[in-house]
């Protein structure tokens, strides 16, 4: 999506499929949100509202002029959308800025909720949540064909290339062939862990649970482990994060200097 928005903002920066009838609702909720924000922090908004809100999202610390800046942006968005009557008619030159303003306001509201600063009363919270929903519908959408393409790519990728890793899990972790009971134990533990992880928001990895589950059953069955594979596995898991950081960091540096 970021690629599409970057390359053809006119077509993808805003959800052009949003019906015109929504504009009325958008306007009402926007006005309510703006009033609520202005009540929180009356005052003159800063000269560069966008920069103020961007910094706020980055460092997540409320400044005296943050809220008035957000309120000002809400007003700006509303004025733009009202002027053209619908998202579809916003001209190419303006569409990118409208999108960014919407994104900034939505993120600013998210950060406010998350940090709990400023403390908001129930009515304000509801008003901001409703408005944020409108903003997200306009900017955070995925066209059907993007979903279909991604689903095809993932589905097809799934069907090739699996052999290498399957052989590792099935043959190279333990010294003997995987037995029925071992397979079932490892799978059950993986499933239980996923369920637990979902419920408590624990950051476990299925890949790692399953592979180490197989290793665990091999040890319990007295089959013995192929230490070379186990070592490689652990190394790959430990290295994944730092290597990805290093790779993407240096790639970003290189690509920005081309």
């Amino acid at each position: 999506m970021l690629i599409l928005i970057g390359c053809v903002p006119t077509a993808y920066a805003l959800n052009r499929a949003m019906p015109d009838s929504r504009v009325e609702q958008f306007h009402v909720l926007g006005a309510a949100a703006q009033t609520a924000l202005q009540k929180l922090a009356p005052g003159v908004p800063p000269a560069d509202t966008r920069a103020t809100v961007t910094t706020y999202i980055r460092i997540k610390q409320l400044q005296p002029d943050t809220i008035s800046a957000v309120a000002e942006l809400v007003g700006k968005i509303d004025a733009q959308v009202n002027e053209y009557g619908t998202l579809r008619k916003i001209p190419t030159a303006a569409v990118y800025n409208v999108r960014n303003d919407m994104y900034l306001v939505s993120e600013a509201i998210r950060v406010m909720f998350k940090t709990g600063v400023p403390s908001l009363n129930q009515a304000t919270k509801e008003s901001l949540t409703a408005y944020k929903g409108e903003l997200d519908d306009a900017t955070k959408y995925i066209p059907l064909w993007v979903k279909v393409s991604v689903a095809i790519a993932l589905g097809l990728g799934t069907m090739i290339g699996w052999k290498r890793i399957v052989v590792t899990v099935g043959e190279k972790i333990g010294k003997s062939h995987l037995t029925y009971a071992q397979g079932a134990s490892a799978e059950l533990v993986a499933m239980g862990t996923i369920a637990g992880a979902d419920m408590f928001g624990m950051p476990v990895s299925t890949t790692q649970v399953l592979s180490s589950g197989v290793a665990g059953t091999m040890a319990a069955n007295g089959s013995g482990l192929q230490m070379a594979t186990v070592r490689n596995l652990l190394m790959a898991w430990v290295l994944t994060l730092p290597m990805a950081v290093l790779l993407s960091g240096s790639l970003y540096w290189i690509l920005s200097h081309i």
Partner: protein
Amino acid sequence: MTDVALTVGASPKPKLDHPVAPTTAILFVSILVAGIVYAGLNIYLEVRDAGVITESWLPFILLGIALLIALGFEFVNGFHDTANAVATVIYTHSLAPNVAVLWSGLWNFIGVMVSSGAVAFVIISLLPVELILQVGSHAGFAMVFALLFAAIIWNLGTWWLGLPASSSHTLIGSIIGVGIANALMQGRDGTAGVNWSQAVNVGYALLLSPIIGFICAALLLLTLKYLVRKPSLYQEPKGATPPPLWIRAILVLTYLHRRLLRPWLKRWSEGHGPHHVDPDRLRADRLCLEPRHA
């Protein structure tokens, strides 16, 4: 005696090297081509509809290449993802390799289709905000491609070595990498660009997952051994015989749970749209895409 005769004739290793049938290959290629044509047509129509004035084809060729890279990222993710799901069902002869893999692909497809994409935007919100605001700029594209290439390189590399690595960790790492590089290039402290809660989460996962997996599976196997005293369960499969029905059911059901049920549960638990997802409770998976474990 018959038992011995059987084991001599058949290896318990599953046959993984089936030659690809021509019809399968044709089907594969036609789905690929159909997908590309479908996407291209949609871009064309939507761009025309939006009234973009086009002077040359160059931007669209670049867009096409960019999209192919992004889809390539998904494609490579698929390699890791299935392996993880099908290894046990294949090696216990609960499902034939080609059946398991085909189903896995199908359910992955459906999984993406039913997901709302909310998680995708949560992932995006973890990126440096100033780069998100200027995705059309040089720096914006540098960010997108740095993320994609880094993840593709690491995923392909580990795949080549046959090591099942976590694509979520790869993606979180890539995001952190861009964050640090961006902060440093802006003259800020590099640590300011890091979402530390995400990094710590990965650290926990690294510590917890192998321990939980190893210990729980070992204990479960020992319990099973104690409760169900049936030696054939604890020896390698004889030939290609599938396991007893209940074991087979466990294996196929856990497999289906991962392939079929989870996407639906996930979608249901996502709540009512993007504004209810808390990025810090997220186990990020796909860049623009969808919620799932790998």
